[in-house]
């Protein structure tokens, strides 16, 4: 496995790509990213992933380009908002989704969602990438360009060990 990407470098890449509103619900795999966003004073922690998506929708309507951070368990909570709000109203958002249950190696509660995660995003028509550590900054640029162009949600999946 390559050297993990630092949270500082990844948040720089997200901001450089144009993302300027950050909300979500924590996962340990992106703990360092949330800590870095909080250090910069730009993170709005939410109570549930669909509520975070609602806040992100409002932020976009008010002129921001939002990111919603979540564990893949939270993607299940989010499906109705993604289908009947963001995709329907053409509201761009980057879903930064951690991949618990990656390759079946995790606690039992993560195995079902870990197995279906990419197919679930495909079903909902949400473009997604699973970058290596070295590819993470480039994935931020891809996400901004794709969500702006399609005016739809896009997802970057964060596998274990990718972020420091």
């Amino acid at each position: 496995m390559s050297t993990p990407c630092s949270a500082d470098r990844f948040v720089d890449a997200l901001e450089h790509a144009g993302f300027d509103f950050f909300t979500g619900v924590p996962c340990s795999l992106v703990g360092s990213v949330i800590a870095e966003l909080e250090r910069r004073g730009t993170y709005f922690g939410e109570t549930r992933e669909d509520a975070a998506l609602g806040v992100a929708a409002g932020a976009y309507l008010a002129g921001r380009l939002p990111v919603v951070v979540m564990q893949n368990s939270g993607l299940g909570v989010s499906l109705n908002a993604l289908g009947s709000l963001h995709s329907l109203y053409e509201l761009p958002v980057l879903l930064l989704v951690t991949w618990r249950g990656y390759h079946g190696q995790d606690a039992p509660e993560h195995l079902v969602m870990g197995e279906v995660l990419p197919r679930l995003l495909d079903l909902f028509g949400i473009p997604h990438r699973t970058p290596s550590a070295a590819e993470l900054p480039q994935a931020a640029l891809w996400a901004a360009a794709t969500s702006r162009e399609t005016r739809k949600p896009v997802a970057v999946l964060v596998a274990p060990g990718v972020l420091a």
Partner: protein
Amino acid sequence: MRITEALEVIAPHLGDAACIHSNGYMSRAAYGVRDTAGCFYMIGSMGLASSIGLGIALVQPRQRVVVFDGDGNVLMNMNTLARIAAAAPRNLVHLCFDNGAHASTGGQATISGTVHLDEVARAAGYRWSGRVDDAGALADVVPRVMAQDGPSFLLMKIALGPAGAPGPRIPHTPEQMTHRLRRALGAEA
């Protein structure tokens, strides 16, 4: 007090507020009374109108934001009351039209008769929370609710009915509503 009656009392006080309406009969009744570029009708994603309003209120703290919610919507994502109270946006007004039922799906009862949502909002920490039972009391309190620092939560007891939809279906497409609200908020040309 019928829902359209309450909406007619409120409408003259909305000015250039961004108005986020919850799904179902709430949106249809409100559209029938008043429609401006600042009106956003959330036709799906039940329970999230208040979160959308919160997002706008956070990004544009000088923009008045009014959320038109129902008791079914508030009960579905009651966590949003806690999040709004904790964030304490001064520019947010949260209206709850409480008819004690899921009117859009046939009038099935909610639990708002026993769980008093204005008291939940107050306990969560809204800067102001109140309840009115008739149009006269609503007319008395609306100017203050719209002018004061929020977050404010105003619960209106609404009579269920008459049978049938209280307004037309929303004629605007979802993406039209996105663009017109973004233009009204200065987010796009």
